[in-house]
């Protein structure tokens, strides 16, 4: 793990990142500007992902309650336990999700919103790779690319 830095072995002269010494104040300033642009890009991705997922989840929740009038009462015989037990059915594969969405099911829409939320950090890492590469910060771009590879790998290993 600790060899990541040394092994990329690139010339330190032109780039502030990858120097094997502390940066001079001028270099630090140039560095800060680069980092700033990456920060703003990543912050934007996170905000868009969060807003999109919240909107979709809200719509899904609205549909759930609209389709099942009995859910809406504040008192009554219907318990939430029926919806949160170990045997409750809800979509947990992409096929089932597609089916639920095609039938306008609220719970399918909620699951879609949750998936958008789950994918937001992955997208954030991907944007990190692109931003660091664009700012010609090779060591950080490689590190971030490795993280992205592990994340994508984990999704495939999960069989999703």
């Amino acid at each position, binding site marked *: 793990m600790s060899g990541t830095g040394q092994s990329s072995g690139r010339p330190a002269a032109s780039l502030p990142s990858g120097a094997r010494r502390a940066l001079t104040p001028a270099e630090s300033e140039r560095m800060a500007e680069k980092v700033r642009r990456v920060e*703003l890009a990543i912050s934007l991705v996170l905000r868009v992902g969060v807003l999109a997922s919240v909107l979709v989840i809200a719509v899904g929740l609205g549909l759930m309650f609209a389709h099942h009038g009995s859910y809406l009462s504040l008192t009554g015989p219907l318990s939430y336990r029926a919806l949160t037990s170990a045997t409750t059915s809800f979509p947990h594969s992409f096929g089932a999700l597609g089916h639920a969405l095609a039938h306008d099911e609220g719970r399918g829409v909620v699951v879609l919103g949750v998936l958008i939320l789950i994918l937001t950090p992955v997208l954030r890492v991907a944007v990190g790779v692109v931003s660091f590469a664009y700012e010609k910060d090779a060591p950080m771009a490689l590190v971030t690319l490795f993280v992205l590879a592990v994340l994508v790998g984990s999704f495939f290993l999960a069989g999703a």
Partner: protein
Amino acid sequence: MTPLDFVVSLALISVAAGVLGSLVGLGGGVVIVPVLTLLYHVDIRLAIGASIVSVIATSSGAAAAYVRDRMANLRAGMFLEVATTTGALTGAYLTTLLPARFLFVFFGLILAYSSVATFRRRHADAPLTASDDRLANYFNLHGTYHDLAEGREVAYKVVGTKLGLSIMYVAGLVSALLGIGSGALKVPAMDSAMHLPMKVSSATSNFMIGVTAAASAGVYFVRGQIDPIIAAPVAAGVLLGATVGARILGRAASKTIRILFVVVLVVISLEMLQKGVLA
């Protein structure tokens, strides 16, 4: 309790979980799992699925602000994610090798030690002004943040990168093995081992936990642990809470955040020890 009561009450509790999680860098799972299992008597598998959703919601909700306000150290966070994601991936394969009971006792003790170490630094957390750490210099992990409570820019240097990476690897491993504690080791790794300021450690941990959780979220989804009627109020409530928490962190005193973190860490370590000893 009807579904509407459930959704509304859980959403309100989730707001509180989001505020707390975003302040101490732990994600809302600390609150969400006990609330769901003890208060609502929800199946533990579904509670853990909801906890993963809450961790990602806390992370993305708070980090959008922390990264924009430069409270989180983006470079250090992304660099350390190498270790957490690798740890999470290995953890997924070790699950069957080690008995969970032993793991709970082992990590309960580690967290108890971390809480003491974090508490001890309460008077001595002045940021470093120099670093001869080769990795930290190579990747330029040092940073500056604006402390609203102190009303000034605080520059800090990073040391102990290798120790930090090792702890982060274990942090990823633990969260994959036990489904909890994703941030509990990250904050001490940055605060005690790498000398990042407390508030930066918390904000950077927040930034990182979403990625660690996302690495195992796929598995939880496929196994059917993400129940929409639980996930919806948790996600929405935690996102709102995390947005509020992110506004508070900059204004709070470092010491307050440290003490709050230690208290939560003590509770988690006791929970783990209890699970290991009594289960």
